[in-house]
């Protein structure tokens, strides 16, 4: 029997499984977290530049003027905003606010919309 068990297939094709919206927001929470973690050195470096001296500050301004850098920063901005909004949503659910199915769905829409909208507004400003 154990041998049979070993050979058994599993259905776990993530492309074929429909993830509900809260699930999508949730995996984005994780993705954005990874993004922020990976970019931490960059962010600390930028903090360093911004505070070390007036020269480094202007270097930072120049560097962030580059479209590619801008794009990365806007990406990080979204990651941060999504992670932030989703974090607040999870904290609310932890204290039993919005834990019902319908409410959880609505709050997901709010999180996705607010973080995207703010990214657009702030991103436009940054650009």
């Amino acid at each position, binding site marked *: 029997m154990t041998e049979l068990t070993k050979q058994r297939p599993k259905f776990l094709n993530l492309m074929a499984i429909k993830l509900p919206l809260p699930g999508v927001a949730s995996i984005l929470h994780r993705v954005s*977290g990874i993004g922020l*973690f990976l970019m931490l050195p960059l962010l600390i470096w930028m903090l360093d530049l911004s505070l070390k*001296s007036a020269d480094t500050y202007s270097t930072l301004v120049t560097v962030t003027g580059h479209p590619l850098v801008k794009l990365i920063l806007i990406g990080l901005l979204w990651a941060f905003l999504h992670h932030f909004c989703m974090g607040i949503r999870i904290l609310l659910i932890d204290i039993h606010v919005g834990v019902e199915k319908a409410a959880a769905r609505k709050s997901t829409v709010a999180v996705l919309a607010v973080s995207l909208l703010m990214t657009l507004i702030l991103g436009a400003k940054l650009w």
Partner: protein
Amino acid sequence: MVNRKIVGAHYGLRDWLAQRITGVVMAVFTLIVGLGLIQGAGASYESWRGFMSAGLMRFVSFLFIVSLCWHAWVGVRDIWMDYIQPAGIKLTLHVLTLLALIGYAGWAAQIIWRL
């Protein structure tokens, strides 16, 4: 071979709670910095440095750095725990993550300290 699943490491709640608390600290910090930026703190090097080097702000920044690293530690370790099964690889990744985060924390703290 005995393949016994071992569970019962009693740090689940501690880390879960820590992640929430550090999250709140970071959220507050974000609001403070956001408010500062809206009031033009980032307009020039001088204003930005002035904003960040205020006594209270430095204290809050330290809190933020510690929170960030702790938060990231729990979060990243969660990812390893979810997706990585072999214990050896998992431990290695945990150690690497921890070392990286300690390094980042030291680096960032040193930036604030200098102000």
